């Protein structure tokens, strides 16, 4: 096995890794700005300097030459090398800033130069707190500056496109954003304009930065030069909690983080998953945070006097639900699941109604033709189409579901987007009694006779199966109105600290939604109807699914967490498009 010595320690390697990536992979650190593991290494920030040498080999027999002490003779490269662009070779000796004064000095020098024209406006900069420049300046930078002349001034508050705002003075010209549009999204919309210390990234004159993946440049910007127009000045990084979750606006199951302050989801950022989305997420998915905060259904709603919806109590809602069911036979009840809801929600719905006597379960896939690309956008608009299918819900066309609704007396609808995406019109559900389990106020929920508010992905732990058959799960990121011990149990794992939760001194009651997980409501319903089915927390529901539904064989929350999602066997990409 080829070997390399970094700061005197021996490491083995395979293939031809680049030195910086190898150092990072082995848990050591070298500061850098321009390098990004998914893109080419331009070696332009000159921050990742290390000292590199190779052992002297005898030309004839290829053996290493040794000095008097029996140690290998090292031939040092005359100049320090940028580790991001240096390829590892067998026997290489590397000194980082930890062991070499020269390297530490060089890194400090570069840092001093980077900072001379940087505005140092951290107190008003959105990047502060998660800024590689800020962090590395504290770690490796000079204590002060010897720069006593005027800084360069460049354009500020430039709207590059609908979603990205540029502050050119903060830019350190790492070209990550430019390379992103060249190498990842392929739109080539950004370039560097001007020369020397006047340069900054910009679009071609008259062009907008409307790349469907544009906000990723904000995420990879190592300073606060590119900021999200939507998020800028809304919250400081250290005031928010970061909770892992899944994107619900598409079928790809892009891994995201929810950033929450005072029970409001402030923004979504991509979370690395090599199997799904790498470091990226589409811009469209970034708007999903609004779904978690705005226009939520809070407290059950019931229709009185024709079309008039009024708030009602949970008891009354449950009673109305149960009485409605008791008034009809199971064959008159149409249960419609949803690809927008999780596996656990659909399962608990199906379980209770099966025990009660309903045999057929339907859902209508949410597909927009020609919407997908070869990257992270999919034709499938729902996060869990494969999951609902695997549970045994039958996909229906618009006409089929309309006919079914016509012959039903009661419709239990988990999907809150039916009217909104024109599967049916509000006229089609005039006749039957419609019970909608809804997260948000939609055209559908407004037309329903009874609305049960349910938790959204930001409030519960639940799993979703993406278009490729990969099951991944969410964590509760914000609290519901009333203390919910079962949800809190999962939350303690999801949130790093408890800012804004019931455990926090600064708890804020204003932004909590009065809703419940579907399985909790199904528990109550099943008790009320005298049925023998009881659900625990979603973790236990998944264990139950794994033992009863063959597609989910071997799936558990532990495995999903350890393996960053599980590829389900038996679900392939072909099935989805068919």
């Amino acid at each position, binding site marked *: 096995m080829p070997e390399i010595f970094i700061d005197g320690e021996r490491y083995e390697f395979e293939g031809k890794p680049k030195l910086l990536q190898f150092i990072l992979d082995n848990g050591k650190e070298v500061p850098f700005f321009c390098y990004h593991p998914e893109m080419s290494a331009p070696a*332009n920030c000159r921050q990742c300097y290390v000292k590199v040498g190779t052992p002297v080999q005898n030309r004839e027999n290829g053996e290493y030459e040794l000095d008097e002490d029996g140690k290998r003779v090292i031939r040092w490269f005359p100049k320090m090398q940028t580790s991001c662009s240096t390829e590892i070779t067998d026997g290489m000796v590397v000194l980082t800033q930890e062991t070499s004064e020269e390297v530490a000095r060089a890194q400090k020098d570069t840092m001093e130069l*980077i900072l001379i*024209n940087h505005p140092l406006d951290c107190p008003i900069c959105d990047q502060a707190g998660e800024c590689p420049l800020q962090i590395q300046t504290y770690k490796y930078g000079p204590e002060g500056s*010897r720069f006593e002349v005027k800084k360069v001034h460049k354009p500020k508050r430039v709207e590059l496109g609908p979603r990205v705002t540029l502050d050119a003075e903060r830019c350190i010209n790492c070209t990550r954003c430019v390379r992103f549009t060249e190498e990842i999204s392929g739109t080539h919309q950004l370039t560097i304009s001007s020369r*020397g210390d*006047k340069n900054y990234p910009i679009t071609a004159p008259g062009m907008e930065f409307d790349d469907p993946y544009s906000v990723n440049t904000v995420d990879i910007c190592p300073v606060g030069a590119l900021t999200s127009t939507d998020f800028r000045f809304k919250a400081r990084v250290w005031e928010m909690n970061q909770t892992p979750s899944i994107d619900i606006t598409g079928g790809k199951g892009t891994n995201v983080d929810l950033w929450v302050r005072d029970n409001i989801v402030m923004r979504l950022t991509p979370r690395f998953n090599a199997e799904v989305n790498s470091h990226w997420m589409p811009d469209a998915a970034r708007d999903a945070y609004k779904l978690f905060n705005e226009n939520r259904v809070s407290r059950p709603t019931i229709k009185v006097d024709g079309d008039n919806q009024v708030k009602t109590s949970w008891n009354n809602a449950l009673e109305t639900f149960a009485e409605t069911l008791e008034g009809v036979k199971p064959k008159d009840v149409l249960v419609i699941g949803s690809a927008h809801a999780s596996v656990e929600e659909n399962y608990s719905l199906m379980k209770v109604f099966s025990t009660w006597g309903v045999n057929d379960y339907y859902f209508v896939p949410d597909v927009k033709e020609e919407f997908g690309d070869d990257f992270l956008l999919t034709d499938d608009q729902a996060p869990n189409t494969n999951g609902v299918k695997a549970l045994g819900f039958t996909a229906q066309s618009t006409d089929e579901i309309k006919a079914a609704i016509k012959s039903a007396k009661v419709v239990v609808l988990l999907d809150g987007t039916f009217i909104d995406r024109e599967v049916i019109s509000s006229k089609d559900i005039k006749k039957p009694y419609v019970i909608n389990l809804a997260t948000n106020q939609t055209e559908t929920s407004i037309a329903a006779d009874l609305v049960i508010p349910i938790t959204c992905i930001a409030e519960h732990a639940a799993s979703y199966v993406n278009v490729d058959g990969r099951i991944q799960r969410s964590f509760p990121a914000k609290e519901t109105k009333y203390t919910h011990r079962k949800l809190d149990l999962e939350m303690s794992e999801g949130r790093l600290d408890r800012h804004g939760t019931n455990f926090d001194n600064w708890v804020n009651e204003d932004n909590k939604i009065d809703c419940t997980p579907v399985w909790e409501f199904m528990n109550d319903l099943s008790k009320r109807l005298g049925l023998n089915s009881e659900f625990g927390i979603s973790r236990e529901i998944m264990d139950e699914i794994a033992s009863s539904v063959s597609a989910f064989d071997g799936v558990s929350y532990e495995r999903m967490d350890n393996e960053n999602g599980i590829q389900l066997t038996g679900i392939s990409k072909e099935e989805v498009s068919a």
Partner: protein
Amino acid sequence: MAFDWKSYTPVIIPDIPNLHEIDVYVQNGGYESLKKVLSNDWTPESVVNEVKAANIRGRGGAGFNAGLKWSFMPKPDGGPRYLACNGDESEPGTFKDRKIFEYNPHLFIEGALIAAYAMQVTTIYVYIRGEYRSWILMMEKALKDAYDRGFIGKNVLGSGFDIEFHVTGGAGAYICGEETSMLESLEGKRGYPRVKPPFPAQKGLWGRPTTINNIETLACVPLVIKNGADWFSGIGAEAHPGPVLYGISGHVNRPGVYELPTGIPVLTLINEVAGGMRNDKKLKGLIPGGSSTPILRGDSLEGVNMDADSLREAGSMMGTAGMIVMDEDTDMVEMLWRISHFYHHESCGQCTPCREGTGWLEKILIKIKNGDGEIRDLDLLIDLCSQMEGRTICALADAAAWPVRYTIDRFRDEFEARCKQSTYALA
């Protein structure tokens, strides 16, 4: 060694009227060298070896043996291979290639074709400084004539050798004279130097093997083929032989481009060839090879010759042989500021030390120039030079730092006279 420069007969820009016209060039023995190598007894390897033996040291500034550079090209694999001819000539004080474009373009074209044959390249690009508008047009005309005569194109002179030849103009960036950013510019991209390795011989234009040569270097090639490697290496200084175009500018009576052998004493060039100092002033300083080469004091030039070794001993470099002569009235602070201003303006902005450092150098020099500088600013300038030298992808940071370092080192008294006492020491 007293060399009788007056008896030297120019060979790169010989005194023949209308030599830029192809008929005149052919009448005077033009394209004979090309015919010679394309005849059966010259293999590509033998051409490379002949040029290697002649020891043509690159005239673009680095002074690397051209034949040796050619031998770095990998073996042909059937794909495209390129020769990129560097006529960007943007180093201040350098204006020699312009003379070749103007007076003897076909000598360069012939040299490039021979080089193309030796390295078996498929396409030649000549990259000419964008400001040289008329010389770009002249080169296009010369190429068209050569195409018409069958010196370029398919099956050149019936030998079975195919070659294409294109002219490209620069867009006004100094950095595009750096070989890898010239390749980027030729590809139609922004002129950013590339990280090496891979070197252009492995991955050059569009990822294919490419060799980059200076115009003057290639113009020497037909002469080597015609007269033999021994003839060429016998001219001028032993380790740095051949005829060179000296571009002399500044405070002399007759500035201009002079073709003479290497190794001519610097003082002979200034006092005799260029007609002596203007207004009989004293020589204060000399930049021997373009603005980035370290300045030499006027009183240290006795016995210094214009070749790589002698200039290295004196503490400078041959560069492009673009000599900038300065008389006793020159303000060194002002001069250095002007050079720093140039490098600040021309830094491409890719690497941190150069992008930020060049601007900082200039701003401190402005401060000193305006009388606001302190002695410690001089130490800061030298310190900044160490922070820039050798820490960037290309050599522009070195080119920007050396003038500062050596001008302050060699004329420190003048700088100190402009500075106030430091209020506190340099941190």
